[in-house]
């Protein structure tokens, strides 16, 4: 019966795809005609494409793809126990496939399509209809619309991926699949539209989010906390759990995240220009400072620097500088990095212990806490000398920007928190969220996937 359910699901997917193909073919046909057409208008549009900008955004897209697999997959995979390593790698890889398809079918249109009352995009761009070679000047006037679409796709993929850190080692795979597809559609797409979509109401408020502090990190981070609370703690939490099974994996993962983040932040300039250069530099500086800050906090409280501490601090710095990358200078980046290392350290080390929930890999402690710090810090250090299209922050004489940032944070936390809670409860009622106690003890690799990551004997 269970198997039949899956088969039905696959058949449905096949039908959806079959339905989409004619639309896609038609779209390609019209765009090709437009590109080679003899009329002056399409020719002018084609000439608006800048090859340098397009090349940079294509490379950035590949860099952001690398952040999810293998970056995030290795980072999380190394931190879980041996018996769950495949389940985490699987979840990351699965999202790359599933959310990419969701993005093509409706996600991109809901996020960036023509606005409906500031809340959501309509379905004019479903199945990428009307998304072709010609640039869309509303978003990026010098790169093909398709390139903007696929760059944004990688953000839509990694955001739900971040939540995995909270419920790792205990969520049933079938529940994961259903929850994530719902979350991508009902939480990510609207929030993305509010903040980045033309007509989105948070964007109209004047909130600054260069590369996804609210859309990606706070959004996923608060959903992570809710997921940790709804699913409950792992067996043996807090004191009877084994340590991370492969820290070298985690180090490689964090390093790949850092590398990919140049695409995430500098790519968000959507052009190969000075703004991209600034985003690249401040991203790097904030990350370096945050890694050092966490490591020094480790020395202060535990007498030793730890490898996991250093890489956690770096990731916290990357998260925090994300909304700020296109609005702050190097001085601001240092402040943001320092705050990220110190605040996330204190939260993960002390506050989390007091509260007692089991955010297995600190998805909330790093992404939401670091994300909120970054969003607010953008309201402190933003300066129009870096980006004339931005705004000044509190330290540059504009306290109002800090309040706007605070509002954007609050809106994201409240919406994502409440809707994530409802979706989790819904999936729990429909198919159950949590793996059985026996599955959890044996490990999800074997019980959910009938595979093991490592063999003991040849």
């Amino acid at each position, binding site marked *: 019966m269970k198997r039949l359910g899956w088969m039905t699901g696959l058949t449905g997917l096949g039908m959806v795809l079959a339905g989409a193909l004619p639309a896609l073919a038609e779209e390609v046909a019209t765009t090709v005609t437009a590109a080679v057409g003899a009329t002056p208008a399409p020719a002018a549009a084609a000439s608006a494409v800048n090859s340098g900008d397009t090349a940079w955004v294509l490379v950035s897209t590949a860099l952001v793809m690398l952040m999810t697999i293998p970056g995030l997959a290795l980072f999380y995979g190394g931190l879980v126990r041996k018996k769950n390593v495949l389940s985490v790698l699987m979840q990351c890889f699965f999202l790359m496939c599933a959310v990419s398809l969701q993005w093509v079918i409706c996600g991109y249109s809901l996020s960036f399509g023509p606005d409906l009352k500031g809340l959501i995009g309509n379905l004019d761009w479903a199945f990428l209809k009307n998304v072709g070679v010609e640039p869309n000047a509303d978003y990026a006037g010098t790169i093909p619309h398709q390139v903007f679409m696929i760059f944004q796709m990688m953000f839509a993929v990694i955001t739900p991926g971040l939540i995995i850190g909270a419920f790792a080692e205990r969520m049933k795979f079938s529940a994961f699949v259903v929850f994530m597809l719902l979350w991508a559609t009902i939480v990510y797409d609207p929030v993305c539209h509010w903040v980045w979509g033309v007509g989105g109401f948070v964007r109209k408020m004047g909130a600054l989010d260069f590369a996804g502090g609210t859309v990606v990190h706070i959004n996923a981070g608060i959903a992570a906390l809710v997921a940790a609370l709804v699913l409950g703690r792992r067996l043996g939490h807090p*004191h009877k759990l*084994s340590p991370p099974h492969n820290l070298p994996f985690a180090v490689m993962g964090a390093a790949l995240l850092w590398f990919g983040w140049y695409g995430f932040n500098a790519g968000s300039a959507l052009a190969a220009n000075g703004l991209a250069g600034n985003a690249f530099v401040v991203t790097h500086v904030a990350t370096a400072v945050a890694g050092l800050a966490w490591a020094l906090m480790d020395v202060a409280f535990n007498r030793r620097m*730890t490898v996991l501490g250093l890489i956690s601090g770096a990731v916290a710095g990357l998260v925090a500088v994300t909304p700020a990358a296109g609005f702050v200078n190097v001085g601001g980046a240092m402040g943001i990095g320092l705050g990220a290392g110190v605040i996330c*350290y204190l939260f993960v*080390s002390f506050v989390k212990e007091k509260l007692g929930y089991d955010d297995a890999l600190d998805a909330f402690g790093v992404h939401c806490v670091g994300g909120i710090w970054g969003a607010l810090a953008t309201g402190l250090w933003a300066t129009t000398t870096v980006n004339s299209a931005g705004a000044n922050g509190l330290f540059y004489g504009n306290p109002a920007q800090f309040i706007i940032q605070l509002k954007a944070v609050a809106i994201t936390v409240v919406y994502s928190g409440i809707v994530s809670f409802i979706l989790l409860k819904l999936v729990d009622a429909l198919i159950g969220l949590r793996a059985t106690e026996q599955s959890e003890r044996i490990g999800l690799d074997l019980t959910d996937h009938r595979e093991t990551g490592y063999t003991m004997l040849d």
Partner: protein
Amino acid sequence: MKYIVAIIQPDRMDEVLERLTDKNINLVTVSSVMGRGRQGGIAQVYRSHKEAGTLLKKVKLEIAVNDEFVTPTIEAITGGARTGNVGDGKIFILDLAECIRIRTGEIGGAAIG
């Protein structure tokens, strides 16, 4: 016949094996194991949280010997594995009921060598 089980520090293994060879004791099985002693191991800390990671890496040697080889085996192990620090390990000696060489079917002391 005795069955000798020794738990030693991993970095002393080569020295112990060399000394066993010198005393003409070649039969040995080695495994990588985790363990702890009176000191309770070393607590590991991950993101400021101590997790259940107190066990230390050790090497376990298993050696079947005829009675006249018991003393030389103990000498080889203690000589090779002793550093004078805590954690040098232990030797356990058990009576061995029987030994059979699979290839030839030999039984008892003849099968050990």
